[in-house]
């Protein structure tokens, strides 16, 4: 249904929490996402000119990198995975003329029903985050499914009922859970690490949160003034080696 579901009391709000402090930009999540989903609910994720001159393809998750200057994280390079944020006010859903684009009432996952999508592309225009990609072969819109066919999959062991990208991330930069539950691991992370919304000013109220980069420091006692060095050993070292040593 194109209209957004009525918020249900106690309904889950499933989403990802992505830690920009640890993401090394390895693309593992992106490729594993492609691998899972090309055989999953929204299969396939086509590749155009696979071995040709202009390779191109459909991905649900893509990893950017940026250079940031100044501020509390200092100058640093930030790797930034980008996928659907499963917004609470997703215009991608409300603009859809067919009802193919919908948000699930029970868990907030935003999906496309490929059987009724007419491929008008309007939803992709309505998504500020560029999270939807068009399948040129099938003529329908596709997007991150939050691995809906994994997270409830009773044929999988409990621990594996997580999105493919989360399970595969070697830097443990991706977390999945219920952001409506203040006690969930993801909610705690968001609270502790001041998880951020992307482009909050646009009002989509993304469910996914991003944990900003930080900087570990080691406090050291007053630093010795850089002394002009001489070839002498200095009293500190002499005192040290003077101590009785035992083997």
């Amino acid at each position: 249904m194109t209209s957004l579901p009525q918020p249900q009391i106690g309904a889950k709000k499933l989403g990802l929490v992505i830690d920009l402090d640890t993401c090394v930009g390895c693309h593992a999540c992106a490729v594993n996402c492609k691998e899972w989903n090309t055989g999953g609910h929204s299969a396939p994720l086509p590749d155009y000119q696979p071995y040709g001159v202009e390779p191109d393809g459909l991905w649900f998750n893509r990893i950017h990198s940026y250079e940031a200057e100044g501020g509390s994280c200092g100058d640093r390079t930030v790797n930034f995975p980008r996928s659907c944020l499963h917004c609470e006010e997703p215009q991608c859903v409300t603009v859809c003329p067919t009802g193919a684009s919908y948000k699930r009432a029970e868990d907030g996952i935003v999906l496309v029903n490929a059987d009724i999508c007419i491929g008008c592309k309007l939803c992709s225009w309505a998504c500020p985050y560029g999270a939807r990609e068009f399948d040129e072969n099938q003529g329908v819109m596709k997007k991150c499914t939050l691995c809906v066919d994994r997270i409830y999959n009773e044929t999988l062991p409990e621990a594996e009922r997580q999105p493919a990208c989360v399970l595969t991330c070697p830097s443990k930069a991706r977390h999945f859970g219920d952001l409506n539950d203040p006690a969930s691991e993801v909610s705690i992370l968001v609270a502790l690490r001041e998880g951020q919304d992307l482009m909050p000013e646009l009002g989509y109220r993304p469910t996914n949160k991003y944990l900003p980069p930080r900087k570990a420091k080691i406090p050291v006692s007053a630093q010795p003034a850089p002394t002009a060095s001489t070839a002498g050993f200095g009293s500190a070292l002499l005192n040290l080696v003077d101590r009785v040593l035992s083997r």
Partner: protein
Amino acid sequence: MAEETIALSKPVGDSVAYTTCYMCACRCGIKVHMKDGALRYIEGNRDHPVNRGVLCAKGSAGIMTALSPARLRKPLKRVGPRGANEFVEIEWDEAMDIATKRLAAIRDSDPNKLAFFTGRDQSQSLTGYFAQMFGTMNYAAHGGFCSVNMAAAGIYSMGGAFWEFGEPDWEYAKIFLLFGVAEDHDSNPIKLGLARLKQRGAKIISINPVRTGYSAVADEFVGITPGTDGLLVFSLIHCLLKQGKIDTQYLVSYTNAHYLVIDAPGSADHGLFARDLQGNPLAFDRTTQQTKSARATDIDPALLGEYRLADGRRARPAFACLAERYISGDYAPEAVAERCGVPAADIHRIAAEIAEVAFNQAVTINQPWTDSNGRRHETMTGRPVAMHGMRGISAHSNGFHTCRAIHILQMLLGAVDTPGSWRYKSPYPKPIPPGPGPAGRERKPDGSLPSLPLGFPKGPEDLLVDAGGEPLRIDRAFSWEAPLGIHGMMHMAISEAHAHPEKIDTLFLFMANMAWNSAMNPGETSRMLADCDESGNYTIPFVIVVDAFASETVAYADLVLPDATYLERYDCISLLDRPIGSAHGPADAIRIPVLPLDRDVRPFQDMLIDLGGRLKLPNFADAAGQPIYKSYADYIVRHERKPGVGPLAGFRGDGTAFGKAPVNPNQLDDYIKNKSFWVHHLPPEQLYFKYANRDYLAGAKAMGLIDSDQQIVLNLYSEIMQKFRLAAQGHGAVQPPERLRHQIDAVMDPLPIWYAPIEESVSQSSPYTLHAITQRPMAMYHSWGSQNVWLRQILSENRLYVHSSLAASHGLDNEDWVRVTSRNGEITCQVRVMDGLNPNTVWTWNAIGKRSGSWGLKEGAPEAKRGFLLNHVLSEYLPADASGQRLSNSDPVTGQAAWFDAMVKIEKVEVASQGTTLPQFPALKSLPGLQFRMQGWLHRGGMNK
């Protein structure tokens, strides 16, 4: 419209197999789901000790490698000129026949005329053994062009090494220094570890000219000027010495810091350890004011000072020599700051942070243990300063010493295999050095070599040189040009085979793209491979290439033997080679065929064992000349290197034994039942101080990992190095040639030294003032990623990254074109501008550039048109000296290829919008049977919905 009904609980596939990934050499465990006979999904094996369930981008793209149109399909025999890619398909019988005849003839005349060079395979224990049994010393695997500096420096200092042989203590480290690592072999374990450090709030410092990847997530980025890490480390050592922040107790307990070094310039034992009559090194005991055995436990050894030996000569503790050297003002932060491109204040601060963590925040684990001297310790205490380094250190011509400098820093802090520091991975530590010298000078009556061709020289007498001191091996390893060339020097193999046609008949290349991305100078290398003498014969008479894919090098083969890919064959990741062991204990693994072969190819190890049988090599054929092994799988189970020691250490004997135990005919099944790996968890009292941990050493000996359970004394001071140096000073029978005498004297220093990377000194006062380096992209493995539909979309091209200040001074913007020139050659490519980069450095991703027509890609593919290799500006040779001799462009201690020494200049050039990178090479013809095919994947619509 109602919400669709979603099949939420669809089974992933219809069957599952566990094997080991080989989209790179990290050896992660994978769980492979099959559906309707096709690959459905590959995920990480959650039980596997290496990756614990995670998978990298490459590993996740395995399906697409299994479907790659670049896969070779059948043995090929060359019909056109070399390099033209003109082949006919032949049957295996004919192919094996050609190879057998050729090799049999070589073995009958001079086995050394077979040059057998293998890449980053994981069957070096088999390939090395084959070479040994064949009787050729001209064998090497990829270590020489890879990271032998790290291996040699570590093995000769600590009896273990960074590389794949150790890991930081991710659980306890509080500060972690990462020197020159972009990705490394431990791809997933390092990422898991970094995440763990982050979680624990430890501080990560990345010392690297480039701020990407691991450096991007580091808490501190030190944008060092390439080739100057040694200076930086000396400066840290300088600061710690000045402040007396040294773990002297650790030094005297576990290193040779207190050993007395003879100070008698000119004599044959100058710089060696003073020893007693039993050969024990001596120390000066301050209690009795006498020299005593340095191994005695009841002494209070002096670390500074100068003492008289019984013969009246002077001697000083090794530590005193060290302290004197690094306390020098030459290594004060202020003195090195500019050269290193690191502010002096930062060096002071980092030294202070290290000292703070090491000495005020030591980690103590309540775990009793017993040392090699039989003394019980109630706890394990460590300095939580961990370090790791790789090719940023290694791939320079001063890398051996830089790496040793880092190990010295670790030792001074007491941070080797202690809680919170760097730890050995099983099967390390090993004695220093761990094994016999290189074989090659003599052969057994059966034609085989007495030991493996690659070994560990203990002094000049172990070198492989002729009477004039010139190299015996084709690649110059173990010569005075590279005395500790313990991994060989693959980057010299082709050019030296070309330069010495009398020495080589057949070049047998396995799994190395040596005409392209592992050539320092691909254009020249390709030319040499196809070069002819006056009579029109190829200078290198015969080339056999074993590859799985249509690589650039295949084009230069006379005979192409196509290998199976990693999901189609058995492999053995063995403790005899580079296993998956960790600090927690030994482990090994196998690969099993998950997919049936769909083309006429054979697993390489099967063909090598077959070849060994056909050649009737010792231990490959029995006395009656019959082959001993049916297949590689058979060899894995039945081969014994020593009694009870086979390729796999797990599930031996009746299936419950491990280590040294009889053959278990069902071993492979037992591995398969255990998800294709075996791991032994060391008990907690064996987890640290392994070099002096009685129980650990005894256990390792019992398992066959080491031959002796003696304490392994860490070599702060390297007596072995000094032995080579003494030769240069005229002592001993084996003497360096005059042209190298000075170099050996300078570089075989028993304590680490720093000198500018050789290329830099050669290029001095030339216009080449910029350092040019490469990095591994995380989502690509060398050259093989480009055939993979998914991976190639990520990096189908590469750019030269330049610092914003350099861009400004050259008027460069993103995507502008530049010409990059070195003393050796030039390339034209596009730039990308960045801030997080040492301003005097330019860099690009490694091995993205492809030759047009290779790798199953269409002609005109971006990899060939806009991708490029930096290699075109490198050379495997340094400029000729006065006598016209050309040294190799390598570390003078180990022969490590100096990939990152390159010095270049850049100029902006105008290139039309449809322009291509330069140089371009003529497109390769498509191989027979490899015509471009849209693979089944797309037709099947991905996988069944």
